[in-house]
């Protein structure tokens, strides 16, 4: 069984990715601060179909110094890590001029620093194992503008630059690195949007709707799979045509 580490696998998109990958025959290690009730029931379901295919590991990714031990423990428990999906993020919004500096720092720590350092430890093992797959979950906000999301947008754009250069660095050793840029999805992260805002985003998109979690999860599954063996250093946008 190929092992895939999915950060933020307890809720929202991360949980959708975890479900999809376990159904496809991967063993998923979901990382988040707490196990959510939705994850618990997904683990029970997965247990019936593919025993041991969905596991939870508690970790606060903002604690950067804990990341090396996280990778060591996971590798000890399940063996080599085939795939890493950097999905966990926080989505605080607010105008920059009023945003507390501590909140700015937390956004950068969780959304940029943590995935980069986690990737450092995972990719090292992938190089030694002779290959692997890394998928970074960015956002269309990494290349289009939304008021109130300047810091979040900066963190998501940072993952795009990270993806491209790392792909060049590790490609020769059989590791691919790609990003997925979702448009607005219905998750806890976007609960701040009211119905009218949501409708407006849907109306302005080419397909007149929002993408759903499974649209994005299946794109991640594709990038992890054998069909994507020649794709690296790129971004797949899944936004129902919002940015078309």
């Amino acid at each position: 069984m190929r092992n895939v580490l999915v950060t933020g696998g307890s809720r929202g998109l991360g949980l959708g990715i975890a479900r999809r990958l376990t159904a496809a025959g991967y063993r998923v290690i979901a990382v988040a601060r707490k196990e959510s009730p939705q994850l618990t029931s997904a683990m029970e379901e997965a247990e019936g179909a593919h025993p041991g295919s969905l596991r939870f590991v508690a970790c606060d990714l903002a604690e950067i110094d804990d990341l090396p031990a996280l990778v060591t423990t996971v590798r000890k428990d399940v063996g080599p890590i085939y795939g890493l999906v950097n999905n966990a993020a926080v989505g605080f919004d607010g105008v920059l001029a009023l945003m507390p500096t501590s909140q700015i720092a937390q956004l950068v720590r969780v959304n940029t620093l943590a995935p980069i350092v986690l990737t450092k430890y995972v990719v090292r093992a992938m190089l030694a194992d002779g290959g692997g797959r890394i998928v970074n979950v960015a956002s269309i906000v990494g290349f289009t503008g939304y008021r109130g999301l300047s810091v979040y947008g900066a963190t998501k754009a940072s993952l795009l630059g990270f993806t491209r250069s790392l792909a060049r660095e590790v490609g020769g050793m059989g590791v691919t690195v790609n990003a997925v840029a979702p448009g607005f999805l219905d998750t806890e992260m976007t609960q701040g949007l009211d119905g009218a805002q949501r409708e407006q985003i849907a109306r302005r998109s080419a397909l007149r709707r929002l993408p759903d979690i499974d649209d994005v999860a299946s794109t991640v599954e594709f990038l992890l799979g054998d069909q994507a063996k020649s794709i690296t250093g790129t971004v797949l946008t899944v936004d129902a045509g919002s940015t078309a």
Partner: protein
Amino acid sequence: MSVRASVLAQFERVAQEQKKTLAPLTDDLVLLESGLDSLCLAIIVAQLEDALGVDPFSAAEDAEFPVTLGDFIELYEHAAP
């Protein structure tokens, strides 16, 4: 196997796997002139972590990457597992 022997064995192994020609492994050999590139060194660090249970480079205080093979071996000899 001693720490020194484990380190040397990993250099040989990675050079072979990555099809690189390795310079003679003396203590004053400058790592970047060993015939291995920095990615190969990263693989060696990952494999030594598995073999010895230590990674002197993820200690909280930032360790400078050693220049010579002798410094590299010493770093591992002093890192308690």
